[in-house]
């Protein structure tokens, strides 16, 4: 237990605060929207967008930080505890706190009748969990492959932004629909929603597994400044 406590501190406050900050931003946007006179369905749409789009974005950026920043990396790599395992604990803490908050917000929205996502409780989890896995997996893979925070964060930001910008096209095209991150908030729980969630989650798992495989060569983690 104490090891997990240390890893929570090692993940760093920006990483741990990312998910709560994204949810606060969602609530602020929804409040602004309501204050601006938007009808309840629009406000509900903002809340759903926040859960589906902002939480995964924050988790992915936090994951890049967790993987890329460690003052004691060289020492860590020389310890008998496998460093990918140490990173996995830190990522688990970041993802776990984000997931707990997302579940909490989803539950509150369902109880207050502000939820416009799928009705089933399990499916509600997939609203944020699938894009979170997909985007976080991509972030980790690029961070490990490129050994650059800039490259990883830019990739995440651009994928996220492009999917927002080209949402109508991506949601309507057959080949891109399964990979579209924001299907629930942009197209609703329609045909292919389940496939989309499954594909996103599978991609995320695949990316994470590949990143872990690459981490078997420990020097992959040493950045240009450290090597």
């Amino acid at each position, binding site marked *: 237990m104490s090891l997990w406590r240390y890893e929570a501190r090692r993940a760093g406050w920006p990483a741990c605060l990312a998910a709560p900050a994204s949810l606060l931003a969602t609530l602020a946007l929804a409040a602004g929207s309501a204050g601006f006179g938007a009808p309840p369905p629009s406000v509900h749409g903002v809340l759903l967008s926040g859960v589906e789009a902002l939480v995964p974005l924050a988790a992915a950026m936090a994951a890049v930080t967790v993987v890329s920043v460690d003052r004691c990396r*060289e020492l860590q790599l020389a310890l008998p505890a496998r460093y990918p395992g140490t990173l996995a604990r830190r990522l688990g803490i970041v993802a776990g706190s984000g997931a707990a908050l997302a579940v909490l917000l989803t539950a509150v929205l369902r109880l207050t009748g502000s939820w416009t996502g799928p009705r089933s409780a399990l499916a509600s989890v997939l609203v944020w969990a699938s894009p979170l896995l997909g985007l976080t997996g991509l972030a980790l893979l690029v961070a490990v492959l490129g050994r650059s925070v800039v490259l990883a964060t830019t990739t995440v930001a651009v994928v996220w932004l492009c999917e927002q910008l080209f949402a109508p096209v991506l949601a309507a095209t057959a080949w891109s629909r399964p990979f579209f991150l924001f299907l629930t908030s942009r197209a609703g729980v329609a045909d292919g929603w389940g496939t989309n969630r499954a594909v996103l989650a599978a991609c995320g798992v695949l990316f994470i597994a590949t990143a872990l495989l690459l981490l078997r060569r*420990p020097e992959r983690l040493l950045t240009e400044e450290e090597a």
Partner: protein
Amino acid sequence: MDIKISGLRRRFGRVEALCGVDLEVPGGMFGLLGTNGAGKTTLMRILAGVLAPTGGRVTVGGHDLATRAGRLAVRRRLGYLPQDLGLYPDLTTREFLDYIGLLKGLDDDAARRRQIGELLDMVGLADVAGRRLKGFSGGMRRRVGIAQALLGDPALVVVDEPTAGLDPEERIRFRTLLAHIAGHRTVLLSTHIVEDVAQTCQEAAVMAAGRVVFTGPVTGIVDRARGVTWEIVTQGPPPAAGVVVSAVGGPDGTRYRVVSPVRPDPAAVPVQPSLEEGYVALMREAAVPG
């Protein structure tokens, strides 16, 4: 815990940091000398399992570092103090050691805490055990570093440039500490400070340009400068031939000590060399092509 290295190579892009290193390290304190960029840190990182070699073979205590099982077995018995030791500034000294202890697999809380207490006493940091690492001086950071390296009572301790940048008092203190811990362990001390090796090691190796150019007793390094070390007192310019190792000004002129295969000046007299002069002579030999 003996170390056997044969034909070890490591390449970074176009740069070959290690080009065929052969070295055997027996138990006890062993010095690894070399100029900056000689490949010492790369070798230390390979021994610590941080870097994978491009070619060659390394065994530590009979475990082959090329295999995953071998690397893990070595890590379980290794204490490593990297050259650029980063510390987590928001942890206290005790917390940092506790965290590293947990990662080293010291799961028995009471035993781990007892060992941390002993190590803090040994490195003289017991008074600041509850202080955050942020703001620690260079010497204190190195002592925290050696304390974490000794957690779990490792059979092999690899320390990379541990005294660079420390004041003389702190350096002596650190050297004494290293000599003390070498009692029943192999301690591999990598440094470019000749004095550190002179004061702590009986056996040493010297690296230059990615190769080992000397292995043997420290006195063997001194022998390399025998017959090629000269002293001259002159009011004129420094001798043109050889390498000036020291120059001390005085009322009669400047007293130079020079390492040179030929007498640098008719007035120069041969003198007993020091370890530093032996090291300079070795480096000169290594620099001569062929």
